């Protein structure tokens, strides 16, 4: 499988600092992911579990300090593999005691310079990103056409404005925007949410990247448009053969598109594996959190006798005070006396239980 790896994230840590509480927010805390060439990785997880932040970290788009602290991000491009966090560690000094970070010193300016340097050839060209809330993510002061043309000029061989324009219109057509040559001159505010999202997709694809990260491409859109966007993405991906990372908390969306699925919880990946295996409700190999998550999807078969939906009781652990053991321990329904101690005190490793299927759970490991 290793040959087909496209993007590999190993043990990524991204922290923020709360001035009020004088503490670190462990937004991404040991994320490991693998994305294979030409496949789609779906990431699910409840809100605040660090889905967006881990992808933004990959792209070097974290502005707030201290930001990315550790980890290994490797991107395999045609030219070879490249470490996206190359040379960054020399700008941070981390003080660790009892395996916990006590203080961080970071030369932000130098760090940012190095990030820009690392990312110069990556952003847009190798990896494109689609953000949620397209209206805010598109520059409101430029026509969508110009924004696509810019992307084309920056990252493809085309240097001629005229050709770039043609290319842009071509992409608008591809994402099925009606009368693209006119829409070209529209500003984002003149488009509906769905159209805007399409334009965003067109822009992301126009640089012909090998990897597309779509961060909740459908939230904020209504159901009919949502499904159209999903269809569009599926279609384009198949056609262009690009790799895709799709973030969503809507499991139905994920299930429709993904080859692999990663489940995130409280800043880490709990499970990653083939879609079928992960979404198998009846499987006894999946993570308890995944199971609980699937069973709270509001569908009739998830209804309890009293008409209640199944839900996960208890609270998400504090992102500031991460428990030492399994993060799901407090809410886990499957903990039993045999492994309880282990669950409580030791963080389970992210272990492969079958080819391509990794789980972070003592229950499944043992």
């Amino acid at each position, binding site marked *: 499988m290793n040959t087909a790896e496209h993007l590999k994230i190993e043990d990524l840590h991204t922290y923020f600092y709360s001035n009020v509480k004088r503490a670190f927010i462990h937004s991404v805390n040991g994320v490991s992911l693998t994305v294979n060439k030409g496949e789609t990785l779906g990431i699910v*997880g*409840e*809100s*605040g579990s660090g889905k967006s932040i881990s992808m933004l970290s990959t792209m070097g788009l974290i502005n707030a300090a201290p930001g990315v602290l550790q980890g290994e991000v490797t991107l395999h491009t045609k030219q070879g593999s490249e470490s996206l966090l190359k040379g960054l560690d020399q700008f941070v000094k981390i003080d660790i005691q009892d395996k916990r970070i006590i203080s961080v010193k970071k030369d932000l300016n130098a760090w940012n310079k190095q990030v820009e340097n690392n990312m110069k050839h990556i952003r847009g060209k190798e990896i494109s990103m689609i953000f949620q809330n397209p209206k805010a993510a598109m520059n409101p002061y430029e026509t969508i056409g110009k924004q696509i043309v810019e992307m084309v000029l920056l990252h493809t061989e085309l240097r001629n404005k005229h050709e770039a324009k043609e290319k842009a219109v071509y992409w608008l057509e591809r994402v099925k925007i*009606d009368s693209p040559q006119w829409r070209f001159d529209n500003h984002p505010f003149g*488009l*509906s*949410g*769905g*159209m805007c999202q399409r334009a965003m997709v067109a822009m992301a694809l126009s640089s012909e990247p090998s990897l597309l990260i779509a961060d909740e491409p459908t*939230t904020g*859109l*209504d*159901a*009919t*448009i*949502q*499904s*159209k966007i999903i*269809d569009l993405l599926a279609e384009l991906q198949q056609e262009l053969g690009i790799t895709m990372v799709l973030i969503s*908390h809507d*499991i*139905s969306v994920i*299930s*429709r598109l993904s080859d692999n699925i990663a489940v995130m919880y409280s800043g880490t990946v709990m499970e990653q594996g083939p879609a079928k295996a992960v979404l198998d409700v009846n499987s006894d190999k999946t993570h308890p959190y995944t199971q*609980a*998550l699937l069973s*709270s*999807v*509001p*569908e*009739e078969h998830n*209804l309890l006798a009293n*008409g*209640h*939906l*199944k*839900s*996960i009781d208890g*609270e*998400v652990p504090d992102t500031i005070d991460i428990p030492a053991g399994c993060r799901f321990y407090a809410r886990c329904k499957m903990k039993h006396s045999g492994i309880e101690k282990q669950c409580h005190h030791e963080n389970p490793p992210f272990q492969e239980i079958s080819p391509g299927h990794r789980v972070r759970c003592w229950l499944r490991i043992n």
Partner: protein
Amino acid sequence: MAFPLLKVSNLKKHYSHKKGILQANKQSDSIIPAVDDISFDLGVNETLGLVGESGCGKTTTGKSILKLTSSSSGSIVYKNTDITLLNEKDFRPYRKDMQMIFQDLDAALNPKVRIRDVLREAITVHHKNMSAGEIKDKTEHLISLVNLKKSKLDNRSSELSGGEKRRVGIARVLAVEPKFIVADEPTSALDVSIQAQVVNLMRDLQNEFKLSYLFISHDLQLVEILSHRVAVMYLGRIVEMGPSMEVANRPLHPYTAILWSSLHDGNQKEAQTAGSQEANWGVFDFERPSTGCRFAPRCPVYLKKGKPSACTDPENEPLLNNTTQEHQVACHFPLG
């Protein structure tokens, strides 16, 4: 349903964009009929789901009922009183009975106020002479009702997560002890597990306090599960209304069918409504509604049937048929 708790008849709300003589383009005043002649009633302990695509007027309906925007015409009878006739001062006592959970998470909460004070304020607005002890008890009761820890009472709302904010919002509404709640997308922006908690909470409350809900949501699955009846809105009109299971499983209006198909047939692309590719499924435009049936330009049936003139006849706009029947539809050619 002995008598309806709330009876809305011919409610209209037209937003006018007063542009003044000098304001740019098009007509001088453009009118947006955000809610255009809708009628429904709601019984005690009943939930009416309201669905429809973004911008079709769901929120406006809810706000009109609570007199948060003045309605243009029509009547809203709450327990035998036409509240459209009351002024804000006379209406204030009714606010105790009628509350709204806002679509926007942050709306209800002042980010700088402690949750305790948020709740205290909500309690004392309509219960002027409560002792401090009683207030404290009640606050703590409320916070446990929505499944939050007491320690959160001293947080400010900016220090809460989305789900917690939503639950505080609900607690705040409950503090007033209302009889009727407009729940405007109470689960939007929440992930499934929290969403489930909120839905369960709403259901428990309904059972316990005999509440009535107007449940507005994009999430059709939730609506199906939570509401007794569903009304489907399109461009300011209710195009179909009936028991939720019926509407979900046996839609009569093509629009309803499209809505639900996008939900149920996720994996079968072929089953996607015929014609939706051809139809200009772009923005729908309040400012330039089509004549006759509003849905006609996007309607697959209309296209399939070769654009019958009945659909675009301005004199013959389809209305909700047969008001006595439970399952009503406003369409010239209802589906099987």
